[in-house]
């Protein structure tokens, strides 16, 4: 369990007042149906969040019927899923395995490609050589020692990620993280996926409904009925059905039908910290069938934001996230088009979609018997593809915390809220770090991003500490962090931050081992880049032959 602050003795979070309900008197647990078993789960919304939650819960709790768990997902046919959440973290492999789908089917049906990390271009000083990597594989020797202080000593010529992680070389050559003979979900380098979110939801739906016994309802919700004790009793649909449940999971996206509209949980805007509030998105076809597929998400900084560039098997997804305070929609579109033109990708056939971004998260995600997952819980700019991993973590937490009876729900809610509040705060810190470390002074967006009032205290204090201490596991208090110490290292040292570690805390033994680890990294990089196929080659083979399960 994550470390929790001092237990407040007997005061649950007072559920906010929804339409026409009595709040529970303070100091009392929401009483009423304490013995009522928690067996019926209703998920509202059929996008990525809805189906990942359905898949995780249904596979964790496979008993159905009279003495099992009933899981129903309701979605309205009219609401198209957002479809921009296209990057994932390596946790996705365990999640897909848990749900029970095959990697072969997933790759084939979701146009997915292998993601091995992110590349950041022009974030530091916008010079021609300004680029650094954030790979998924941990730095060499990570289990045994912190390499960073020794790397800093050595007046390195190559970048941090290139020196301590062989995966950087694979990424720069658009190589795959595995062979056709590597079993499903295994790899020679740590990897996740780029996927077509528009195909991912239907793919999971097919599996959840066909193999896991999830019930699927197409209908609109016209009313949310409270139970008078701080929870939801049932939903009323347009066709007049009543959907009763013991737990309601709000995956309705930005609409937030339950957590927002019904429960009225306030939304904490992060617009003053992370300025991004808009995006232009476009799909770019490949020139031909042989065009290489990139191994990482490329994030290229612009005048007032950054452009994402993601390579799927069928097409690329490109978009410019920016701040409307610094750039008009028109000017932003021009910049995006200039980015495309520079790569020979601009054509009159392209259609650009404008997407508003409401950056922030709910004060609490779990209120009474309603918990929000996905966009309804919050959204931050996709700089480190945190949206889908938060969905996975939420699904896993709900599955782990699910109480047998209603009386236990308030505790589950409290633990969940503490954990996810912490996680949202850490994601905000981590994303802001990318901006604070930039030295760009060529625009108000960049200058303003370093104003003290826009920097969370937690980040400022952490950076103060890191001026003399390289980030390490101990710095982070939770058992399961969204971003490891290694990720912070990749960003800090990739952007030229210079921790001056106390020399008396370093020793020759570790120094020698560090030197060996660096040579070993270089050796591995050479060996693996000779052995591994290109992404395009491997994905084509997988399409044809599939991957073996073992």
């Amino acid at each position, binding site marked *: 369990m994550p470390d929790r602050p001092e237990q407040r003795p007997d005061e649950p979070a007072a559920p906010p007042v929804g339409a026409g309900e009595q709040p529970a008197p303070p100091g009392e647990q929401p009483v009423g149906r304490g013995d009522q078993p928690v067996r019926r789960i209703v998920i509202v919304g059929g996008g990525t969040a809805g189906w990942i939650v359905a898949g995780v819960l249904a596979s964790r709790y496979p008993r159905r019927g009279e003495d099992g768990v009933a899981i129903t997902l309701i979605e309205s046919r009219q609401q198209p899923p957002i479809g921009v959440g296209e990057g994932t973290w390596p946790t996705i492999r365990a999640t897909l395995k848990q749900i029970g789908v095959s990697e072969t089917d997933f790759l084939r049906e979701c146009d997915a490609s292998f993601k091995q990390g992110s590349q950041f271009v022009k974030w*530091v*000083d*916008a*010079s*021609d*050589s*300004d680029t650094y990597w954030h790979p998924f594989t941990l730095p060499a020797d990570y289990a045994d020692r912190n390499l960073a202080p020794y790397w*800093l*000593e050595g*007046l390195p010529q190559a970048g941090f990620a290139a020196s301590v992680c062989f995966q950087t070389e694979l990424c720069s050559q658009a190589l795959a993280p595995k062979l056709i003979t590597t079993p499903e979900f295994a790899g020679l380098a740590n990897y996740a996926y780029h996927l077509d979110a528009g195909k991912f939801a239907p793919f999971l739906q097919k599996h959840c409904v066909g193999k896991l016994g999830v019930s699927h309802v197409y209908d609109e919700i016209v009313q949310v009925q409270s139970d008078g004790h701080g929870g939801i009793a049932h939903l009323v649909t347009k066709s007049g059905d009543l959907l009763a449940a013991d737990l309601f999971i709000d995956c309705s996206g930005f609409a937030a039908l339950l957590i927002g509209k019904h429960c009225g949980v306030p939304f904490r805007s992060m617009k003053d910290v992370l300025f991004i509030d808009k995006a232009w998105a476009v799909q770019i076809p490949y020139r031909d069938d042989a065009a290489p597929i990139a191994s990482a998400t490329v994030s290229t900084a612009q*005048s007032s934001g950054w452009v994402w560039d993601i390579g799927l098997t069928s097409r690329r997804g490109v978009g410019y996230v920016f701040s409307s305070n610094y750039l008009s929609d028109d000017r932003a579109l021009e910049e995006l088009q200039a980015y495309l033109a520079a790569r020979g990708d601009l054509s009159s056939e392209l259609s650009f979609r404008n997407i508003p971004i409401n950056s922030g998260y709910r004060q609490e995600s779990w209120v009474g018997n309603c918990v929000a997952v996905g966009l309804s819980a919050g959204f931050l700019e996709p700089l480190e593809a945190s949206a889908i991993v938060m969905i996975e973590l939420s699904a896993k937490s709900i599955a782990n915390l699910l109480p047998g009876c209603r009386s236990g729900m308030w505790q589950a809610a409290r633990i969940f809220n503490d954990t996810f509040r912490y996680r949202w705060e850490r994601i905000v810190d981590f994303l802001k770090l990318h901006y*604070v*470390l*930039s*030295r760009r*002074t*060529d*625009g*108000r967006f960049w*200058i303003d991003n*370093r*104003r*003290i009032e826009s920097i969370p205290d937690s980040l400022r204090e952490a*950076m*103060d500490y*890191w*001026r*003399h201490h390289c980030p390490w596991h101990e710095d982070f208090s939770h058992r399961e962090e969204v971003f490891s110490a290694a990720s912070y290292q990749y960003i*800090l040292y990739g*952007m*030229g*931050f*210079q*921790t*001056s*570690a*106390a*020399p008396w805390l370093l020793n020759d033994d570790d120094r020698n081992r560090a030197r060996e680890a660096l040579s070993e990294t270089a050796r591995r990089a050479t060996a693996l880049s000779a052995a591994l196929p290109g992404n395009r080659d491997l994905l084509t083979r997988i399409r044809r032959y599939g991957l073996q399960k073992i």
Partner: protein
Amino acid sequence: MFIRPKWIGGACLSALLSFVFPSVNEVCAQTPVPEAPAAKALVQAMQVQESVRIALEASVQRDVQQGRFTQKVLDCVKTSNLDFATDTYAAAVAAALSPQEIKQAMAFFSSAEGRGYLKYSAAQELQARGLSGGESVEMSPKEYSATSKFLDSTAGKKLLQDRVHETAELKASLARGMAALLGQCRR
């Protein structure tokens, strides 16, 4: 108090660190640079020479630590004349900006607010690298507003955002000058 890592890059010219300093076996002749007094004054106001010096020293420092050059070479470089850098940049700016734009830029960089911007940039460099005391680095509202205005102007865009003056020719010219300087210092 702690020993700091010794490499520091220059301000907006840290691109220079990515130059491959050519092996210095011969002194390359410097191509003469056309006169451009207004551009030269601007380049001086932008404190370009200081940035070049920092970048050059950092690079030579690294060579000294790795045993390629002696300390004497570094000492020599520290006191060398870097006028060639000013001249090179002046020529590039004169070619890239109209006289109007040069005037506009000069007005900014020679003003108190413009100097404040330069100070802010230099301080921001240190701050972003974790090398300053951790206090916040901010511009005053006046400096900020003047900077915003300049960034919105064509001169500002050309010089600070698009960096139109940093052509391949400029880089080559700079590299030649640095090679010559290093060559002399190694005598």
